[in-house]
């Protein structure tokens, strides 16, 4: 028969042994790390280019960072997690100024685990570079490009900042953040969130299925903005001076409008849903907001 209070004692003993187990595991992890060593030393590629080369990066897993610099050349520093993967760079033409450069990560040892197939890229490119990045898993960051940028990932998140060229950004499950875009933007994700911060673009299309969308900033005169969230919420935060025509509609969601809009006489309500058709200020931009069950919120900046 158990003595009174033995469950507490047993719990204490278990916690104590769990603590020791954790300490042991921590030391073992450190030991393993020390035994295997840190990441492989970075492999550096440097190519001379013109002001607007085409750069393609195909990576399996890891972080990809692409930044613009003032030089007419491309420098890539690639760090692989293990010898199970290698990074190749193919300039075209092979000699002289490269017009196209393709970086790709290859699995050398197919039996290696997923983590061993990680490669991180930090790539400096001329601002006018046309960029194409495929990174299955891992964060992608692109900064300061004026060329066309096409980015795709399955599970990673994407951040694009200060891009003035056309952006085509797609992530299946990751979040997408686009800061201060000036060119046309096409962004989509299925389960991730979309954020457009301080854009000056005249055309933005953003869609997500279960994520939410945040648009924070003004709308350019003559601009066309189409944002669609299926079950997530859609938040628009714009300055009081924002001038737009709005067409907002939702099948089952709510419309939370904190912005003064002169409603149109035309009925914009989808049958069985909610809708808003109206104009704010001079109606210089066109705003098309849709949701199925998410809430559409409009606010002005304070």
């Amino acid at each position, binding site marked *: 028969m158990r003595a009174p209070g033995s469950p507490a004692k047993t719990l204490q003993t278990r916690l104590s042994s769990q603590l020791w187990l954790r300490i042991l595991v921590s030391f073992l992890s450190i030991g393993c790390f020390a035994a295997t060593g840190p990441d492989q030393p970075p492999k550096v590629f440097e190519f001379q280019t013109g002001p607007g080369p085409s750069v*393609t990066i*195909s990576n399996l*897993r890891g972080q990809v960072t692409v930044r613009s610099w003032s030089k007419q050349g491309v420098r890539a520093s690639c760090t692989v997690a293990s010898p199970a993967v290698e990074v190749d760079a*193919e300039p*075209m033409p*092979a000699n002289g100024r490269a017009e196209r450069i*393709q970086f*790709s990560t*290859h*699995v*050398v040892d*197919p039996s290696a685990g*997923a983590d061993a197939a990680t490669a991180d890229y930090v790539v400096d490119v001329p601002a006018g570079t046309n960029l194409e990045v*495929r990174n*299955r*898993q891992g964060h992608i960051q692109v900064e300061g490009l004026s060329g066309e940028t*096409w980015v795709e990932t*399955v*599970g990673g998140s994407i951040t694009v900042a200060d891009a003035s060229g*056309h952006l*085509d950004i797609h992530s*299946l*499950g990751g979040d997408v953040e686009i800061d201060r875009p000036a060119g*046309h933007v*096409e962004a*989509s994700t*299925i*389960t991730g969130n979309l954020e457009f911060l301080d854009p000056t673009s005249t055309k933005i*299309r953003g*869609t997500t*299925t*279960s994520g939410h969308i945040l648009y924070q900033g003004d709308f350019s005169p003559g601009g*066309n903005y*189409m944002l*669609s969230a*299926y*079950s997530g919420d859609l938040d628009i935060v714009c300055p009081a001076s924002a001038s737009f*025509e709005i*067409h907002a*509609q*939702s*099948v*089952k969601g709510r419309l939370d409008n904190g912005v003064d809009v002169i409603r*149109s006489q*035309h009925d914009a309500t*989808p*049958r*069985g*849903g909610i809708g808003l*058709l*109206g*104009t704010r200020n001079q*109606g210089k931009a*066109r705003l*098309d907001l*849709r949701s*199925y*069950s998410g809430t559409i919120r409009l606010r002005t900046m304070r």
Partner: protein
Amino acid sequence: MTSSTENRPEIPRPSCREFDIALPAYLEGQTSPEVERHARECEFCAVVLADLEAVRDNCRALPLEEPPALVWANVRAALKAQGVLQESRPACREFDLALPAYLEGEPSPEAERHARECEFCAVVLADLEAVRDNCRALPAEDPPALLWSKVRAALEAEGILKVPAAGFWGTRVPAWAQWAAPVGALAALAMVTGILVRAPEGLRHVEPTVPVRTSASANFGVSPDFEKTLGQLEQSFAVRESSLDPGLKATYRKSLDSLDASIKECRTTIEAKPSNALAQEYLLAAYTEKAEVLQSALEMDAR
């Protein structure tokens, strides 16, 4: 409030939508009195039809071109990933670089010499020559319906194609008239790329064993052809899913679950209110996205 500058209403009429859905099959040669009738009645759709027929005919007239170097790189990467392709020596790499031009007809004594010396590269060359010759011998077929959506998306991305706000991920085709040639080129490229990416026998998908999921989605504006394609993609994905990296698998599964939930919800809504155009758009968009997600998952090894 201004209206769309297109001649067509921003939210297309049901008949236009049905026309859109039936169009791929019609362009592939299936008879469709409804499509023909609607094209006679709707000026906008008549222009769309005429343009797409011109695109199709131009595609057929185009010579089959070799794919860009990127495709070769993807093929190599896929072969390497599957362990089919051994780590190449410098001479093999030189051979790889020279191969695309050689296959396009440029003389390359180095490539020929290397192929004589290296048994592995000789096999690669023989296979690729066979693929090339088979491609040339193939009749110029129209690409499957899914490719149309990709072509549209690419044109939208380039700003060549102006898409009305209705729908998303490029489900509408408003103005093709001036762009028959680029569309033709793009479609041909996509077709050849698709063929070549799937070409190596060893990389072909295992024949699906999962039964086709049937549903009554034809009643919701989804064409039987599209649904059949989707079913095939689902079958292939079910076979392939277990071999995916766990992280990727989880992402794909989550996305597909999200889209399936959307499809289910939209169908319920449309059953209750068949006139709900927005729900119909979301439904069609969810189907299209689902097809794209499945296709992306199936192409994973080929990238």
